[in-house]
């Protein structure tokens, strides 16, 4: 719970620092993108802070490259 609270504080600080600059420049696309990336980051980090099972991206790449690596090891052995 403490971790989630800290993350929310960090999130508000980031918005407080960055968004006024974007608002000032009237950059709508950048603002949307900023919020999307921040939302993805917040979701992933809150899941991690709550101890939920977050999928590992290196598992995905390991699954994709498994046939090639088996082939390479077969060549080398």
């Amino acid at each position, binding site marked *: 719970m403490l971790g989630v609270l800290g993350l929310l504080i960090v999130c508000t600080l980031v918005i407080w620092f960055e968004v006024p600059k974007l608002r000032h420049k009237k950059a709508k696309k950048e603002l949307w993108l900023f919020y999307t990336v921040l939302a993805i980051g917040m979701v992933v980090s809150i899941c991690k802070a709550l101890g939920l099972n*977050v999928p590992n991206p290196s598992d995905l790449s390991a699954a994709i*490259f498994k046939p090639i690596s088996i082939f390479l090891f077969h060549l080398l052995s």
Partner: protein
Amino acid sequence: MIFPSHTPDTKKATQSFYIGNIAGGLVMVTLILLGILVLGPYYSQITMFPSYELGRRIDVGNFLQGIEVVIAILWFITLFFKLCIYFYATLLGFANVFHIKDYKLFSFPVALIMITLSLIVYPSVSYQKDWDTKTWIPYSLLVGILYPLFLLIAGFIQNKKRRSSNG
């Protein structure tokens, strides 16, 4: 790719590239040579960080000891610069993909994702070793050879098309 698309002075950048490569290679060769000469081939094979082990063994007359601390501090500094370069490349690539001029804008959200990923990506050392031996080789083949080759061929075809349409 920071080099050569984000370096204004290509000639100087090429020079620095070569100097850095040669210096890094020399350091690498010295470390490997020292590791084999001091620790022996078997021991330098099974230890995860031979340079740290080398620093631990330095003992000049029971006086100059504990050099491994210096090596650990050096690791912190080098890792900081490595992290800076990777983070810079990530931000530049991100800004390039979405056609944004100011790449500094996304440093906070991307840093948030990066810090969380640093905890997720390698759950343990054995997982890291397994991933490095099994997945890293085909992955680096794809990113380091096939992708640049593909880009080169695509650029070549585009250049040829443009020239034939112009002339």
